[in-house]
């Protein structure tokens, strides 16, 4: 995966070769990484939307009054 294995060798190359990508997997991994990133992003929406819906329904069923939260306030 390493794109650079020796900086002295790398910087001794012609300028157009030095000026390039240096991250692991340069030139071969980018599309795979983007696909993984998109899956993670969309998956996050699915997971958090589900847990938010559950939390809202649970709280909604309890039917607390507008001032009930004050009993949860503790004076530190």
């Amino acid at each position, binding site marked *: 995966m390493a794109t650079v294995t020796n900086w002295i060798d790398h910087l001794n190359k012609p300028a157009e070769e030095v*000026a390039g*990508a240096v991250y692991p997997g340069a030139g071969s991994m980018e599309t795979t990484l*983007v696909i993984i990133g998109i899956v993670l992003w969309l998956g996050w929406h699915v997971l*958090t*939307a589900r847990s938010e819906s559950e939390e809202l329904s649970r709280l909604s*069923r309890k039917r607390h009054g507008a001032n009930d*939260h004050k009993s949860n306030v*503790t004076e530190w």
Partner: protein
Amino acid sequence: MTDQLGALTTIFTEFYYWVTVVLMFLIHVGFCMYEVGASRYKHHQHTLMKNTMLIPLVTVTWFFFGWWIYWAFPTGPGIAPSIMNESTALITDESTFSAKWYLANTEYMAINLGDHISGVFWAAFLLFSWTAASIVSGAIIERITTFAFGILAIAIGSVFWTIDAAWGWHFDGWMLKILGYHDAYASGVIHAIAGGFALGVLCVLGPRIGKFSSSGEPRNIGPRNPWLVTVGLFLIYTGFWGFYAACNIPIFDLGPEYGMEGVTYWTATNIYVTPTTLSGITFNFLMSLSGGLLAGYWIAKGDPFWTYSSGLAGVICASAGNDLYHPIQAMIIGMIGVVIAYKLHYWVERKFKIDDAVGAVAVHGYAGFVGLVICGFVLNGYPSSGYSVGAMWDGTTYATINPLGQFLGAIIMFGVLGMLPGYVIAKVLHGMGKLRIPRDVEIAGLDYEMMESAKKDERAVSSATR
């Protein structure tokens, strides 16, 4: 980089944008503080998390497609030809500033020893994106689901404002050519669109419970923590300095850029690559801020919430032309924008029962809209670009700045790319039952469960003696 002067110029530019990004981060810190201060105790933590989570959501989508849109869409597509390739298609060819180089899977969207600018420029625009989404966030506190806000934040932060930036902010944008559109520091490109988008969402979302009496009279739900709001707005002012600097190119030789043989002219430029100075815009930033504060204090009768917001509205209103205005023009324009935004806010609230919790539609939307229109009169006749000067509607050259072009531009920003998509997306989310939290939760408070689960420990700690 092998020559020292070229390296210095490149690394100075890289560092310049990097500093603007750090400064602009304060805008988001300020927005978070401001929103929490404006929300009621029982909603504080959810309000904070809603605004915080737009950071990763807009960032990853800006990486995946937002940045690409900016570089692909200047031509419309199909409205005016690009000066790079003379085509009206999406710019995805081999042109120097083609979207092709900014696809998420290209080598320029990462650490690349041949590119010192893409990352910091991407980040500067990303911070603008956060701002656009954060403007919407404040207006809709205490009743929107985090899921819905995430979708809306991505829509405004990584899609719609990006399109408007491509159209009206890019040096190759069709709005400059056809309309003579000018908006140097984003009265419309960021503020009017975000304010319009927020208004579209609010039309569907509805007011907070208790905001209006049974007879329809609005009630004031003032900020719960005025000090947090105050510090938040000061931080937004601070971040706004970075925003102004980020809208400039710090050092550029305009001679060869404009095709002038033998001419060398190094200068800072605005986003349109026309000359301005960081020094000059500093006059105007401070004078428009002052105009806003003066007018806000007067019209709101010393109300701190509106006075601070008016300072921001003053800058926003003058921003379209702050690259060229005289400082006193900037101050007067800031004052006018504040008076109109303040009056419109209460008129819209009363007439249409719109509950904009922090006045975001007024401060950003109305002030931005008014600023664009005023800019058309005050800068009438100035070139919208340095590349060429031509007639309005022509499209192959750049029209000069004019009142009609600015007015149409304001409608495009506020209405077409702002309010309309906000309304439509909110309608879809509402149809899915995902837009608004249940009534009982709104009454109980979004933080109820969090507070309840912490209660036992908190009580034990507060009464502990060892």
